[in-house]
């Protein structure tokens, strides 16, 4: 990964962790003192390489800065004093891992809407009798990553 890709990737994650909001290309351009178009192109390259997911039709926005979602979802994550949205249960637990291994995921059961939660403390998951369901086989995850 080129130096620019790494700088932008890390800046996006750091800003998201600090603020709970996935930054625009303009915010990253200001942070790193780079031309806006250069950051937009880097966002596009990070999307093409499946590191992040771009917002269709807007070169300044990401839809996902994995594991974070740039838009509200059904997966609310609290960790290290911050509140975040995950893209799915995998990414939501990924946020907790990235932030040190303590946190909670809250999401409603897609069938009955009962509030469910998963809690991780000290890097260990508190036992849960819920189940995780994957609809799409692994080789097709990136065919439509938003659906996946």
């Amino acid at each position: 990964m080129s130096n620019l890709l790494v700088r932008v990737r890390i800046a996006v994650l750091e800003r998201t962790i600090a603020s709970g909001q996935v930054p625009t290309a303009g915010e990253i351009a200001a942070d790193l003192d780079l031309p806006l178009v250069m950051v937009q192109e880097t966002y596009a390259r990070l999307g093409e390489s499946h590191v992040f997911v771009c917002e269709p039709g807007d070169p300044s926005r990401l839809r996902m800065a994995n594991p974070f979602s740039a838009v509200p979802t059904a997966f609310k994550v609290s960790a290290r004093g911050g509140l975040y949205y995950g893209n799915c249960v995998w990414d939501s637990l990924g946020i907790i891992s990235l932030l040190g291994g303590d946190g909670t995921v809250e999401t409603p059961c897609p069938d009955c809407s009962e509030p469910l939660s998963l809690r991780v403390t000290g890097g260990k998951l508190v036992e849960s009798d819920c189940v995780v369901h994957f609809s799409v086989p692994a080789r097709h995850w990136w065919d439509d990553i938003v659906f996946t």
Partner: protein
Amino acid sequence: MLLFRSEEHVERSGKPKGALMTPEQMWRLADIWYHDRDDPSWRRRSAEEAEEVFAEIGLTGEFWSLTG
């Protein structure tokens, strides 16, 4: 990847059959996958490397195949 109250709730929801895993497996996969995502030296796993991670937590077979 969604969290359901139980397998019965998955069936009732009408979702495609897909695959199930325990929250513990999901946590282990998420932890391996994302714990170092903010490390500048991180790089995306190859398909072969991803399959190795899946196998490490007991996810094998056609559903989890990326290379077959």
